[in-house]
Protein backbone atom coordinates (compact mmCIF):
# COMPACT_ATOMS: atom_id res chain seq x y z
CA UNK A 1 0.00 0.00 0.00
CA UNK A 2 1.28 3.47 -0.84
CA UNK A 3 1.29 6.31 1.66
CA UNK A 4 -1.33 8.20 -0.34
CA UNK A 5 -3.54 5.08 -0.35
CA UNK A 6 -3.20 4.91 3.45
CA UNK A 7 -4.35 8.53 3.72
CA UNK A 8 -7.23 7.78 1.33
CA UNK A 9 -8.25 4.93 3.61
CA UNK A 10 -8.15 7.12 6.73
CA UNK A 11 -10.26 9.75 4.95
CA UNK A 12 -12.74 7.06 3.94
CA UNK A 13 -12.92 5.77 7.53
CA UNK A 14 -13.59 9.31 8.70
CA UNK A 15 -16.36 9.64 6.14
CA UNK A 16 -17.99 6.39 7.28
CA UNK A 17 -18.10 7.82 10.82
CA UNK A 18 -17.88 4.63 12.89
CA UNK A 19 -18.05 6.58 16.15
CA UNK A 20 -20.91 8.67 17.47
CA UNK A 21 -18.70 11.69 18.18
CA UNK A 22 -15.29 12.98 17.11
CA UNK A 23 -14.39 10.85 14.12
CA UNK A 24 -12.35 13.68 12.60
CA UNK A 25 -9.66 14.06 15.22
CA UNK A 26 -9.34 10.30 15.61
CA UNK A 27 -8.42 9.61 11.99
CA UNK A 28 -6.64 12.91 11.36
CA UNK A 29 -4.39 12.21 14.36
CA UNK A 30 -3.45 8.82 12.94
CA UNK A 31 -2.48 10.45 9.63
CA UNK A 32 -0.64 13.28 11.35
CA UNK A 33 1.41 10.93 13.53
CA UNK A 34 2.17 8.69 10.54
CA UNK A 35 3.47 11.78 8.73
CA UNK A 36 5.59 12.93 11.66
CA UNK A 37 7.21 9.50 11.87
CA UNK A 38 7.71 8.96 8.14
CA UNK A 39 8.95 12.48 7.39
CA UNK A 40 11.28 12.63 10.41
CA UNK A 41 14.17 13.80 8.23
CA UNK A 42 12.42 17.05 7.30
CA UNK A 43 13.17 20.28 9.20
CA UNK A 44 10.69 20.69 12.13
CA UNK A 45 8.52 23.44 10.61
CA UNK A 46 8.18 21.59 7.31
CA UNK A 47 7.40 18.36 9.11
CA UNK A 48 4.60 20.13 10.96
CA UNK A 49 3.23 21.46 7.65
CA UNK A 50 3.27 17.98 6.10
CA UNK A 51 1.35 16.69 9.13
CA UNK A 52 -1.08 19.59 8.85
CA UNK A 53 -1.72 19.00 5.12
CA UNK A 54 -2.33 15.32 5.83
CA UNK A 55 -4.71 16.06 8.69
CA UNK A 56 -6.64 18.59 6.59
CA UNK A 57 -7.00 16.03 3.79
CA UNK A 58 -8.27 13.33 6.14
CA UNK A 59 -10.54 15.85 7.86
CA UNK A 60 -12.18 16.48 4.48
CA UNK A 61 -11.22 20.11 3.98
CA UNK A 62 -8.37 19.71 1.47
CA UNK A 63 -8.34 18.07 -1.98
CA UNK A 64 -6.05 15.12 -2.64
CA UNK A 65 -4.21 16.95 -5.44
CA UNK A 66 -3.46 19.93 -3.22
CA UNK A 67 -2.35 17.69 -0.36
CA UNK A 68 0.06 15.81 -2.66
CA UNK A 69 1.43 19.09 -4.05
CA UNK A 70 1.99 20.47 -0.55
CA UNK A 71 3.77 17.33 0.65
CA UNK A 72 5.94 17.08 -2.48
CA UNK A 73 6.99 20.73 -2.36
CA UNK A 74 7.82 20.49 1.34
CA UNK A 75 9.88 17.35 0.72
CA UNK A 76 11.99 19.24 -1.81
CA UNK A 77 13.87 20.68 1.18
CA UNK A 78 15.30 17.30 2.05
CA UNK A 79 16.91 16.86 -1.36
CA UNK A 80 18.92 20.07 -1.19
CA UNK A 81 21.80 19.13 1.09
CA UNK A 82 24.88 21.33 1.57
CA UNK A 83 27.13 21.07 -1.45
CA UNK A 84 24.32 20.41 -3.94
CA UNK A 85 24.54 22.40 -7.16
CA UNK A 86 21.32 24.35 -7.69
CA UNK A 87 19.79 26.90 -10.01
CA UNK A 88 16.79 29.18 -9.87
CA UNK A 89 13.69 27.77 -11.53
CA UNK A 90 14.24 29.89 -14.65
CA UNK A 91 17.88 28.91 -14.70
CA UNK A 92 19.10 32.51 -14.66
CA UNK A 93 21.32 32.03 -11.59
CA UNK A 94 23.42 29.03 -10.58
CA UNK A 95 25.20 28.24 -7.33
CA UNK A 96 25.74 25.82 -4.50
CA UNK A 97 23.81 25.10 -1.26
CA UNK A 98 25.72 26.17 1.85
CA UNK A 99 23.33 25.03 4.59
CA UNK A 100 19.67 24.32 5.37
CA UNK A 101 18.12 26.52 8.07
CA UNK A 102 15.96 25.01 10.83
CA UNK A 103 12.78 26.31 9.15
CA UNK A 104 13.74 24.61 5.87
CA UNK A 105 14.95 27.68 3.98
CA UNK A 106 18.13 27.26 1.97
CA UNK A 107 21.26 29.38 2.29
CA UNK A 108 23.10 29.23 -1.03
CA UNK A 109 25.95 31.01 -2.77
CA UNK A 110 25.63 32.01 -6.38
CA UNK A 111 28.53 31.44 -8.78
CA UNK A 112 29.16 35.18 -8.67
CA UNK A 113 29.79 34.88 -4.90
CA UNK A 114 26.59 36.40 -3.50
CA UNK A 115 25.06 34.62 -0.50
CA UNK A 116 21.28 34.30 -0.67
CA UNK A 117 18.41 32.70 1.29
CA UNK A 118 15.64 30.98 -0.68
CA UNK A 119 12.70 28.68 -0.19
CA UNK A 120 13.61 25.18 -1.42
CA UNK A 121 10.70 25.21 -3.87
CA UNK A 122 12.34 28.22 -5.57
CA UNK A 123 15.47 26.21 -6.38
CA UNK A 124 16.08 23.16 -8.53
CA UNK A 125 18.96 20.72 -8.19
CA UNK A 126 21.23 20.68 -11.23
CA UNK A 127 22.26 17.62 -13.18
CA UNK A 128 25.51 16.33 -11.82
CA UNK A 129 24.56 16.76 -8.14
CA UNK A 130 27.17 17.97 -5.69
CA UNK A 131 29.70 20.74 -6.23
Amino acid at each position, binding site marked *: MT*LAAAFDLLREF*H*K*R*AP*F*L*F*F*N*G*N*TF*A*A*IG*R*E*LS*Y*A*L*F*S*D*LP*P*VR*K*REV*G*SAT*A*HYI*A*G*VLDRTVMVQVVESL*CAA*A*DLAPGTRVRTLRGSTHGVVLRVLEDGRIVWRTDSGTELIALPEALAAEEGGTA
Partner: protein
Amino acid sequence: MKLRLDLLKHLTTEDVIREAEATVHRFKPEPLFSTTGTGSLSSASTQERAREVAHSTALTQSLEQRARQSGQSGTDKK
Protein backbone atom coordinates in the same frame (compact mmCIF):
# COMPACT_ATOMS: atom_id res chain seq x y z
CA MET B 1 13.53 11.82 0.14
CA LYS B 2 13.54 8.61 2.12
CA LEU B 3 10.46 7.76 4.18
CA ARG B 4 11.49 6.66 7.69
CA LEU B 5 9.72 3.31 7.77
CA ASP B 6 12.26 2.22 10.39
CA LEU B 7 10.89 4.82 12.83
CA LEU B 8 7.28 4.10 11.92
CA LYS B 9 7.67 0.63 13.42
CA HIS B 10 8.08 2.25 16.84
CA LEU B 11 4.99 4.47 16.66
CA THR B 12 2.47 3.34 19.28
CA THR B 13 -1.27 3.68 19.77
CA GLU B 14 -0.57 5.86 22.83
CA ASP B 15 1.26 8.37 20.62
CA VAL B 16 -1.80 8.67 18.39
CA ILE B 17 -4.23 8.89 21.31
CA ARG B 18 -2.26 11.75 22.88
CA GLU B 19 -2.29 13.71 19.61
CA ALA B 20 -6.01 13.00 19.04
CA GLU B 21 -6.85 14.29 22.52
CA ALA B 22 -4.67 17.37 22.15
CA THR B 23 -6.41 18.46 18.93
CA VAL B 24 -9.99 17.51 19.81
CA HIS B 25 -11.10 21.14 20.19
CA ARG B 26 -10.32 21.87 16.52
CA PHE B 27 -12.85 19.33 15.24
CA LYS B 28 -16.65 19.22 15.22
CA PRO B 29 -18.03 16.45 17.44
CA GLU B 30 -20.83 15.52 15.01
CA PRO B 31 -20.06 13.37 11.90
CA LEU B 32 -20.10 16.39 9.58
CA PHE B 33 -18.05 14.81 6.79
CA SER B 34 -20.34 11.81 6.40
CA THR B 35 -23.50 13.91 6.36
CA THR B 36 -22.41 16.92 4.28
CA GLY B 37 -19.42 15.60 2.30
CA THR B 38 -17.31 18.45 3.63
CA GLY B 39 -15.31 18.15 6.79
CA SER B 40 -14.29 20.74 9.31
CA LEU B 41 -10.98 21.64 10.93
CA SER B 42 -10.47 25.00 12.59
CA SER B 43 -7.20 26.86 12.10
CA ALA B 44 -4.44 26.33 14.59
CA SER B 45 -3.41 29.28 16.76
CA THR B 46 0.20 30.45 16.91
CA GLN B 47 0.64 28.63 20.22
CA GLU B 48 -0.82 25.45 18.76
CA ARG B 49 1.52 25.66 15.77
CA ALA B 50 4.48 26.03 18.12
CA ARG B 51 3.21 23.09 20.17
CA GLU B 52 2.88 20.95 17.04
CA VAL B 53 6.45 21.76 15.98
CA ALA B 54 7.68 20.85 19.48
CA HIS B 55 5.54 17.70 19.49
CA SER B 56 6.77 16.51 16.08
CA THR B 57 10.38 17.09 17.14
CA ALA B 58 9.84 15.29 20.45
CA LEU B 59 8.12 12.40 18.68
CA THR B 60 11.02 12.00 16.26
CA GLN B 61 13.50 11.97 19.14
CA SER B 62 11.35 9.51 21.03
CA LEU B 63 11.04 7.19 18.01
CA GLU B 64 14.79 7.35 17.39
CA GLN B 65 15.42 6.49 21.04
CA ARG B 66 13.02 3.55 20.87
CA ALA B 67 14.74 2.38 17.67
CA ARG B 68 18.14 2.56 19.39
CA GLN B 69 16.84 0.67 22.44
CA SER B 70 15.20 -1.91 20.21
CA GLY B 71 18.49 -2.34 18.34
CA GLN B 72 20.38 -2.72 21.60
CA SER B 73 17.97 -5.32 22.97
CA GLY B 74 18.20 -7.12 19.63
CA THR B 75 21.97 -7.14 19.94
CA ASP B 76 21.73 -8.28 23.58
CA LYS B 77 19.60 -11.25 22.54
CA LYS B 78 22.32 -12.38 20.15
